[in-house]
């Protein structure tokens, strides 16, 4: 897809989000407070009840900062509100419209997804900074370099997540409704990706397996890169693994897409 069309689509979807001003701000504010607030209270309780000052290598403040980064970056990576858009197109037959357009559907949806993430970017920029200042959280080892590296890691994680998500979405060609698969995917990716609990609390052998699986690269990796916990060599290695998993996911998605289109009935017209 031409970059000009990609940017146009992105801006187009963002404009569609801005059409609902109240929803935009409610989503941005409520989504952040609910998720980050609950995480904060839970971990505060865990630290208090356990009587420990360090869990999985994190102090309470460190844990809160980690989750702040994971929650904010995770929203950009997963685009949760946009999940189900592809399977919805297949189920409702709105895919018909895209199949007639002279533009690749996958790139079309990715551009729309990024445009859809307006609220996530606002949360990251506005609430992330506000939380750090209001809660007087330690900035960790955040540097200009780590921010730059995290931007690259987050962009790569976003593409990787999208490619893996598509594999599940394309199952809609066979199963019509993939809601249960979506829930299972969310559970697995958030648990094994460091979104629910830091991966450092898992036993050593499990951690070593998780190192090579794609899940941690969705959430934990970009967050730790941002917090300056990943050296440049580890960052490069992580990006290489992401590229490898991305190629696998792309190939699987492509296969499912092609096979699925043979079955597609274009219901709804």
């Amino acid at each position, binding site marked *: 897809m031409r970059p*000009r*069309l990609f940017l146009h*689509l992105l801006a187009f979807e963002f404009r*569609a989000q801005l*059409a609902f001003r109240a929803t935009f701000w409610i989503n941005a504010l409520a989504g952040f407070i609910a998720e980050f607030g609950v995480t904060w209270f839970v971990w505060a309780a865990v630290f208090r009840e356990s009587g420990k000052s360090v869990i999985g290598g994190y102090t309470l403040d460190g844990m809160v900062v980690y989750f702040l980064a994971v929650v904010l970056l995770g929203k950009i990576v997963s685009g949760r509100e946009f999940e189900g858009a592809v399977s919805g197109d297949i189920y409702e037959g709105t895919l*018909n419209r895209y199949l*007639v357009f002279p*533009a690749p559907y996958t790139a079309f949806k990715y551009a729309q997804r990024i445009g859809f993430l307006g609220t996530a970017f606002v949360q990251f920029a506005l609430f992330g900074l506000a939380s750090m200042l209001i809660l007087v959280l330690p900035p960790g080892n955040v540097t200009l370099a780590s921010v730059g590296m995290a931007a690259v890691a987050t962009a790569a994680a976003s593409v990787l997540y999208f490619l893996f998500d598509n594999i599940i979405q394309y199952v809609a060609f066979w199963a019509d409704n993939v809601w249960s698969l979506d829930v299972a995917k969310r559970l697995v990716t958030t648990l094994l990706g460091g979104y629910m609990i830091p991966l450092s609390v898992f036993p050593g052998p499990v951690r070593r397996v998780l190192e090579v699986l794609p899940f941690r690269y969705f959430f934990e990796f970009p967050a730790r890169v941002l917090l300056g916990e990943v050296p440049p060599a580890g960052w490069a290695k992580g990006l290489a693994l992401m590229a490898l998993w991305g190629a696998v996911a792309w190939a699987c998605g492509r296969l499912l897409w092609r096979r699925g*289109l043979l079955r597609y*009935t274009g219901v709804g017209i």
Partner: protein
Amino acid sequence: MIEVEALGKVFRVHRKEPGLRGSLKALFRREWTEKPAVRGVSFRVGEGEIVGLIGANGAGKTTLVKMLAGIIHPTSGSAKVLGFTPWERDNRLRRQISLIMGQKAQLWWDLPAADCFLLLKEIYRIPEPAYRETLDYLSGVLDVRKELNVQIRRLSLGERMKMELIAALLHRPRVVFLDEPTIGLDLTAQRAIRDFILEYRRVHRPAMILTSHYMEDIQRLCERIVIIREGEFVYDGPLAAVVQRYAQSKVIRAHLRRTPEPVQVDGDLRALGEVVACSAEELCLRVPRADVARASARILERYPVLDLAIEEMDIGTIIERIFRERGEVGGAGGA
């Protein structure tokens, strides 16, 4: 521009027994059945031609259109649209075709049409001057310039359909598939859309395939019709020929000066045709084409006629008659 050879599509449909027992059973074992939607149809459509696809619900019209627009794959046969196989979805083809679905909104609900058109300009790579010129022309002819900046969801159904038409024709497609373009519209909007389609055809000469349940659409827009029944073509030819063949009679409707008693139809007139209606102020007769002049003269001569009209049989009735006849002889053959 469109060449179709023995095209067929069979859908695999899940059959579930009714009730809770059926639902539980389907959790473990599903029964599938094959449903042929289109059965080996062949036809061609040339430049500037509007072909009307007529058939009952489930006859296979939309399935055929979906295959030709490249949305679904056929089970058998072949098709070429502008020299391309549609379901291979080559961008060179997709830039030259358009699909208008009256039952499915194509535009983005929450944004004004002007924003949607700008996106389509990018998708179809329409040069700025051509875009301006076409948008100006289409919005002018359809009389929706003032509504271009209104959110799609705030438009009336008629206005929305006009915007859909603009969206579909902005890139000046050479092949247009119109699937129920006037469905749900009021008579004024239907007429405006029909006039527009004819005007567009006159100027740009695209090949068009139209499906519609409104016989008025077919009569006004199509010189050629294809009648489809259970996936097979029952008739493919000029609309006029089908009218000639199946409507061998016409209806003479005479509006009379009111009399105290209903008029009496004499034996001579009865011999010429069938009395459809007879009252104090109306006389309506169905007569064979060859006897129309004679019967009209006799009515004018014997009754106090205020107005007289000679009507062709309604196309819907003709189609019903064809279906009935084909059904009675055990299915359809190509015409």
